[in-house]
């Protein structure tokens, strides 16, 4: 219920939201949890395994129970903590993990079967028959035990990722963090202050008190104003630091737009990578429950959370509240409740020496030994010091088993926390994360004074390390009460006592694990699933290992903790991969001719990151093959134009350029005359073929190398490596010019006529494999006479700015001459007819010998990969060698080859097909393939089988150069 006049919510801004289809009222500043409690909604979810009715346990990101689905117009987010989700107008939340309504969940039958569902139940029960594992047991268990649902649709929301850099990252905006940030910021350091909730203040917002003689709220407002005015401070609210990584890098998740109705372009979340010179961890402490019998009912909450709801949100979770706590920290709650007019029915304090001076009954040395209330607590049983049991009517039990410092981030780089007997809790080990120091409650300093002073001290140390001087500002006075706690982990009695509410793990499960010899804490965790729920055991880890320590007779320090790993809170994959969905996955590279091709309705296909035209359909053509056949015939009989700018182009200069090319290519380039082009083959260091292409000699010390499209980047890297590793001192420089030139292939019997029509000066004597400068309309161009089609072929390159104009002009002229553009499909057919290889053939496992180019490995010099290519097993008849295949039936790449009459089985496999096409020129299906001892088998038949496409046919083995083997057409 809402308490008048209390809380930091904005009562001038009422909001409407829906939970499970029913509309409720809240205020700006409410979380979903506080608004539900204000509406007396106590039942908010069902537990993971037993489907027990559950309410809200905490008021922070550590919440294990109150997980809900948030439904928006375009998104559905499961497992959202109601304690973190802020309420906005129109918020639609639904409970999850239920069959039927939340109140009458049909799967609650699991709770009745609970005696069977102890730890290891699944491992022991669902063993036989084996065939049932995947088909029956897993779907059944998944249906019964679960979390929220995904919509099955893409998340269309905007997400962001970002980088930040600072001198000091302060994690947590409570008194310790504020003091640290203020101290460092006043001295001029670049500070980022990350606070998980929407408002700064931490426990000050829940506990109130005074600082420097004024109400904590006033001090807070002054600090906030000062930080906001400093240009060197960035305050990031709604931001949880999720992980500590190498080099002072921290991951952080910012909830940018989750607290309001979605808007176009407003990121839902932003995942930050923050690189900080130093970090101060002021993340506070997490209150831990006590495992007493039937401690999981809605209405049983953490005492600190009850105080937060009361003072920060103006909500009392109950009308008659009882307190069960073993620390003095819960006594502040009693006074706040009383002052707010809420009845405190009893205080149950297990410490016999605890103070009894309160305005309500105090049961010292007593424990809570039982509870009642199916959908919400209405009665507790108190076992008094003398063993007598009494019943107390209550609708809210505020419990506290003490506080666990939030050590998580300090353990992310392999550090282990240290056990403190005084605090009955683990505290951070110093130096566990280089450059990070924990302060305040995160370091076990529980008073406000301690928080302020440790925050300031840590900031001063950081400033010293940065070489900055701290101003000697006075430390404001604040409460400095000692933190008195006596460890109480579990209460024996009839009924289950939950440790991990998230995964339904009880004290009995942990004891059973120990009994069955899963006595290491890591084994216990995996056997019971304790700490493996979405909350990662924030409220249960320490209590569970304490119960394990008790069961195994070891101490808590010897038992140790499980491993704390990032992220500290759940991080959506969408935030981590922000911007990378769909087309955002990789940059798109567009040719200068892109629009011209699209104007002609050419379907574009991806070639690496490039988009290249597949074919250029003409009116009346209904299939790609019709267009392709026409384009091939056009090139063979007239002239075709294709954009080949995607090929890698590397400009190589220097007195040692020729020597360098001799080293990287198998063949010799130092003997290449200026003005000539040569085909080159490149090996990897392991002797296999790496890439091929042509290299032209533009001058005595100047070459331009062409690589394949696919290997443009890798070849550049390869050359860089060779240059740096093997010939660093050589007079040699090279740089990519791929992007600088637009280059077009002009091929066919009328290619020369087409070029003569556009070049400023006619070609003249320009033999096959030449290069020369040329001009087009005064624009300096490069002209190569090379061919990838087997026809008289040229490539003309102009600076990229002229690419589109030249392409359109070439097409217009070609069309006048009976030619036109050709796409990737035709380009592929043309090269298969000529037996030219691509990366379909040089796929990384073939040698120069395999592709019939052993003679291209010069005997007169060494080259990269030459020695390794001579290894046994890489030469000889046992190798699969490049051959051509011809068939009158359709064949397919990926098919395998067998001797005719042999079964199409792995043992008889003799090779495979890499490329196929229908050749309109030869009127047959052609293929390139690798066949065992293939060069000796020209003229023979092989059986080609493609199990996937149902092809089984005989082919003739031929020389891979099907068309014009002596190259008469190409040389012109």
């Amino acid at each position, binding site marked *: 219920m809402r308490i008048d006049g209390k809380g930091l919510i904005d009562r001038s801004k009422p909001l409407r939201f829906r939970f499970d289809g029913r509309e409720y009222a809240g205020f700006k500043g409410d979380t979903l949890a506080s608004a539900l409690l204000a509406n007396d909604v106590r039942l908010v979810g069902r537990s993971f395994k037993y489907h027990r009715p559950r309410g809200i346990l905490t008021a922070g990101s550590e919440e294990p129970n109150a997980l809900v689905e948030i439904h928006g117009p375009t998104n559905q987010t499961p497992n959202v903590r109601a304690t973190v989700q802020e309420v906005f107008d129109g918020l639609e939340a639904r409970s999850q993990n239920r069959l039927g309504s939340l109140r009458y969940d049909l799967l609650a039958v699991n709770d009745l079967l609970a005696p069977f569902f102890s730890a290891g139940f699944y491992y022991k029960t669902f063993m036989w028959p084996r065939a049932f594992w995947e088909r029956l047991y897993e779907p059944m268990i998944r249906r019964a035990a679960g979390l929220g649902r995904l919509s099955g649709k893409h998340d269309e929301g905007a997400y962001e990722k970002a980088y930040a850099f600072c001198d000091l990252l302060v994690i947590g905006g409570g008194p310790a963090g504020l003091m640290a940030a203020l101290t460092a910021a006043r001295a001029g350091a670049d500070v980022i202050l990350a606070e998980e909730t929407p408002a700064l203040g931490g426990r000050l917002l829940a506990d109130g008190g005074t600082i420097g003689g004024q109400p904590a709220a006033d001090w807070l407002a002054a600090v906030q104003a000062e930080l906001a005015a400093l240009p060197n401070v960035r305050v990031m609210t709604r931001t949880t630091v999720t992980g500590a990584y190498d080099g002072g890098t921290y991951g952080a998740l910012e909830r940018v737009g989750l607290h309001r109705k979605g808007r176009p372009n407003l990121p839902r979340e932003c995942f930050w990578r923050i690189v900080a010179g130093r970090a101060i961890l002021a993340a506070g402490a997490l209150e831990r429950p006590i495992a007493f019998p039937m401690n999981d009912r809605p209405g049983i909450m953490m005492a600190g959370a009850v105080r937060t709801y009361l003072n920060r949100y103006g909500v009392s979770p109950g009308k008659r509240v009882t307190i069960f706590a073993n620390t003095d920290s819960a006594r502040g709650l009693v006074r706040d409740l009383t002052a707010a007019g809420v009845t405190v029915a009893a205080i149950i304090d297990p410490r016999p020496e605890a103070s009894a001076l309160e305005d309500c009954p105090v049961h010292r040395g007593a424990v809570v030994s039982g509870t009642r209330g199916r959908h919400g607590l209405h009665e507790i049983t108190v076992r008094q010091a003398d063993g007598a049991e009494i019943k107390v009517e209550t609708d809210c039990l505020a419990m506290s088993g003490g506080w666990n410092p939030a050590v998580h981030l300090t353990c992310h780089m392999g550090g282990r926390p240290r056990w403190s007997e005084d605090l009955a809790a683990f505290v951070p080990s110093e130096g566990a994360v280089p450059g990070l120091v924990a302060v305040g409650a995160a370091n076990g300093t529980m008073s406000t004074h301690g928080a302020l002073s440790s925050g300031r001290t840590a900031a001063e140390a950081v400033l010293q390390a940065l070489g900055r001087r701290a101003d000697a500002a006075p430390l404001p006075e604040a409460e400095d009460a000692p933190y008195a706690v006596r460890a109480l982990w579990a209460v024996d009695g009839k009924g289950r006592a939950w440790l991990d509410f998230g995964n339904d793990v009880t004290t009995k499960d942990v004891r059973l694990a120990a009994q069955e010899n899963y006595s290491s804490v890591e084994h216990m965790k995996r056997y019971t699933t304790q700490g493996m729920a979405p909350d990662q055991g924030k409220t249960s880890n320490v209590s569970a290992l304490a119960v394990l320590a008790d069961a195994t007779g070891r101490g808590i320090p010897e038992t140790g903790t499980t491993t704390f790993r990032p992220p500290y809170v759940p991080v959506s994959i969408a935030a981590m991969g922000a911007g990378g969905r769909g087309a955002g996955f990789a940059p798109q590279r567009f040719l200068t001719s892109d629009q011209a091709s699209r104007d002609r309705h050419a379907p574009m296909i991806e070639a690496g990151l490039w988009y290249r035209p597949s074919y250029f359909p003409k009116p009346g053509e209904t299939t790609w093959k019709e267009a392709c056949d026409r384009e091939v015939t056009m090139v063979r009989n007239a002239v075709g134009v294709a954009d080949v700018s995607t090929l890698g182009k590397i400009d190589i200069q220097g007195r040692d350029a020729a020597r360098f090319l001799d080293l990287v290519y198998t063949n010799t380039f130092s003997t290449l005359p200026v003005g000539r082009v040569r085909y080159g083959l490149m090996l990897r260091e392991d002797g296999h073929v790496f890439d091929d292409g042509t290299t032209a000699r533009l001058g005595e010390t100047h070459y331009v190398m062409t690589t394949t499209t696919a290997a443009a980047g890798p070849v550049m890297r390869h050359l860089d490596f060779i240059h740096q590793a093997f010939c660093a001192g050589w007079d040699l420089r090279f740089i990519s010019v791929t992007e600088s030139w637009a280059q077009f292939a002009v091929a066919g019997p009328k290619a020369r006529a087409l070029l003569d029509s556009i070049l400023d000066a006619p070609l003249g004597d320009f033999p096959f494999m030449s290069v020369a400068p040329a001009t087009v*309309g005064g624009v300096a161009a490069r002209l190569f006479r090379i061919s990838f089609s087997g026809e008289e072929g040229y490539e003309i390159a102009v600076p990229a700015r002229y690419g589109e104009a030249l392409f359109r002009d070439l097409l217009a002229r070609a069309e006048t001459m009976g030619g036109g553009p050709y796409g990737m499909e035709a380009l592929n057919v043309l090269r298969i007819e000529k037996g030219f290889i691509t990366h379909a053939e040089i796929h990384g496992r073939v040698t120069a010998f395999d592709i019939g180019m052993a003679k291209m490995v010069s005997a007169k010099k060494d080259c990269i990969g030459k020695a390794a290519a001579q290894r046994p097993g890489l030469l000889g008849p046992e190798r699969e060698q490049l051959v051509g295949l011809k068939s009158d039936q359709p064949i397919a790449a990926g098919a395998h080859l067998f001797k005719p009459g042999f079964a199409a089985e792995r043992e008889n496999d003799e090779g495979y097909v890499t490329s196929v096409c229908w050749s309109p020129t030869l009127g047959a299906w052609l293929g390139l393939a690798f066949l065992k001892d293939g060069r000796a088998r020209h003229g023979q038949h092989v059986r080609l089988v493609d199990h996937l496409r149902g092809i089984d046919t005989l082919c003739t083995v031929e020389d891979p150069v099907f068309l014009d083997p002596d190259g008469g057409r190409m040389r012109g």
Partner: protein
Amino acid sequence: MAELIAKGPFDGQEPVSAGGAVLAPLALGPIWSLALFPGQAKAAEQALKPLDLGFPAPGQWLQGKAGARLVWTGRDQAFLIGAEPLEALAGLAAITDQSDGWAALALKCSAAEAVLARLVPVDLRAQAFPPGRAIRAGLNHMPAVILRVESGFEILTFRSMARTAWHELAEVQAHLAARAALTV
């Protein structure tokens, strides 16, 4: 005689002003790569004097005479922007025309840093990356050369990736604009 019409990577693209930053195409003029041959650093320094330029240190760019700039782009390598290379450099450095290989953008105004903080994993705060600094870094997943100038940043990326670069920068601006419109 054919007459070829030149087209820049961002032809027809209007500047985008959003999220506290202005993104605009940039015409840089000629870009030449100067890659010093071994042992030629001193001679090259001498040869660059008429442009009032030295060879930039790693991470630096220098302003010379008549709009000429020399931007460090790698080991023993710099881009001469806005000027033609001097003949005196012949033989001292491999000189390669890069003018058409790069798409250049200007990113200005107060949120320029915030925009790049979403795409570039490098510290570009003014104290770490003041005017006169240059870096080769990834612009999200694209290669880039980034210069800090008085008015903000100049960004060079591959010409073929111009459309993606523009789209991603403009998208970040739209995100920042939506963030700025939040009252709390």
